[in-house]
């Protein structure tokens, strides 16, 4: 790692810093500069393993997959998007599916909608790797698609069942693909994740999770009112190093918080991944509970 430091003489003018977020690593130490990244990976893995110990070891905590599951044999949990699609086809599902979708919706309403994207969703592994590789290979910035395409896609996903009578999106929905492959041995669907990886890597930066995914769009809508947010509490200390912009999957949410009046990132596109907290040497960002904060201010 320190070898890289001495090897700074590169031909590209912008390549004077050897490693991304070196300032934060120097300031906070390597561990703290990757803290939330590791916690997120641990969380993603934990959810996956809770499902996987069923079919792998016969320990049934969670049955099913991310589309719909059963916790401890009693509590139903289901993906709100697939439930909405089923309702749009005109089929009235069993109450288990509806209750499950409500429970999940309620959970992410409180936890912060797109927390799902960064802390649970397996596609995040794929798109984060593509983004990491982009940075490593120093691939040039690409023309950006509009961020609100995901809401158009969400509308499309909910409209198609109405027109075709079947849950069309579930053929290509990448969210359950990895779980299906690992829990049910249905690995041939992994081509969808490969496509997303290539799309993010070569065609358009952060294309899937940041611009297109309808599941993320639905969770973003759910998370508008959530109490937990990342806040640029120390915005005045920002030295414009741009490391957070470099790493943020939804970089448009940062500027209003850093340069505007309200330091809190209220934009529900924020996945609350906490990478901005990690990579900031100036310790600008923090998680905050805005309801607790309000209560404090009222006292």
């Amino acid at each position, binding site marked *: 790692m320190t070898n890289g430091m001495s090897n700074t003489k590169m031909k590209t003018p912008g390549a004077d810093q050897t490693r991304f977020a070196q300032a934060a690593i120097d300031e906070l130490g390597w561990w703290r500069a990757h803290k939330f990244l590791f916690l997120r990976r641990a969380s993603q893995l934990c959810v996956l393993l809770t499902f996987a110990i069923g079919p792998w070891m016969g320990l049934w905590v969670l049955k099913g997959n991310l589309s719909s599951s059963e916790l401890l044999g009693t509590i139903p949990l289901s993906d709100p998007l697939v439930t909405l699609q089923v309702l749009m086809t005109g089929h009235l599902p*069993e109450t288990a599916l509806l209750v*499950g979708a409500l429970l999940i919706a309620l959970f992410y309403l409180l936890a912060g909608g797109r927390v799902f994207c960064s802390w649970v969703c397996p596609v995040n592994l794929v798109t984060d790797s593509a983004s990491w590789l982009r940075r490593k290979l120093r691939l040039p910035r690409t023309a950006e698609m509009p961020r609100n395409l995901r809401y158009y896609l969400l509308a499309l996903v909910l409209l198609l069942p109405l027109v075709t009578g079947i849950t069309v999106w579930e053929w*290509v929905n990448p969210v359950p693909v990895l779980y299906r492959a690992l829990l049910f041995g249905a690995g041939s669907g992994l081509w969808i994740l490969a496509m997303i990886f290539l799309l993010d890597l070569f065609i358009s930066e952060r294309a899937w999770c940041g611009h297109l995914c309808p599941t993320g769009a639905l969770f973003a809508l759910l998370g508008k009112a959530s109490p937990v947010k990342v806040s640029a509490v120390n915005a005045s200390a920002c030295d414009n190093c741009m490391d957070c912009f470099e790493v943020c999957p939804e970089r448009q949410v940062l500027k209003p918080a850093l340069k505007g009046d309200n330091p809190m990132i209220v934009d529900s596109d924020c996945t609350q991944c906490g990478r901005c907290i990690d990579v900031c040497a100036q310790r600008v960002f923090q998680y905050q509970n805005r309801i607790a904060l309000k209560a404090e201010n009222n006292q």
Partner: protein
Amino acid sequence: MSQVNRNSKAKGVNRRQFLATTAKAGCAMGLLGLGVSGVAKQSSHLDPMAIRPPGALDEQDFLSACVRCGLCVQACPYDTLKLARWFEGAPTGTPYFTARTVPCEMCEDIPCVKACPSGSLDHALTNIDEAKMGIAVLIDEKNCLNFKGLRCDVCYRVCPLIDNAITLERQHNQRSDHHAMFLPTVNSDTCTGCGKCEHACVLEEAAIKVLPAHIALGKTATHDTYINTEETTLEMLNKGLTL
């Protein structure tokens, strides 16, 4: 001028931009929608050898209800059910089984149906003998050992509804002229499509196969009054009777 620019930038979009992006996004989504629907429709054809779990709705309704969670697969104590893979003859992620590999054991408590959260496996099915997963069809009489005058009878013996769903119909053996043949005959009203007969068939390739009902069954036209010939009189026919 710069003031105006800053204002329009602060708002993020102006009307022209809004219309342009909406139109573009609309077109893109339209194309994508066509593409994805096309793929879905194309690959929604179920392979005739892939049998849905007990209680499954009609294929079209099944595809609107199933969320592909795999709870039925994990509920099956015999590992009969599988989630379909891409490129494999059933819509990706939906549950099915292949009778020749592992047939349905017809559990009395039907755990797969109970586990289904979406109702794509109809919870109204409480008696497994009333399941309609498919219909067994003795499809190859030429190679069936019983049709050769032998007493194989395996499909008949393994049938969970023996003497009901499969019967042995006695017939004179024309070839030897003094033996009998016992022909396995499926009663399509009571066959559940569990596939035990197909699984057990001793031939290298099964002579009896479970097929989806829409392939296995014929259907009389609605205007056809021969359905009930004994009660039908000429007078009724002339009137254009509806049963």
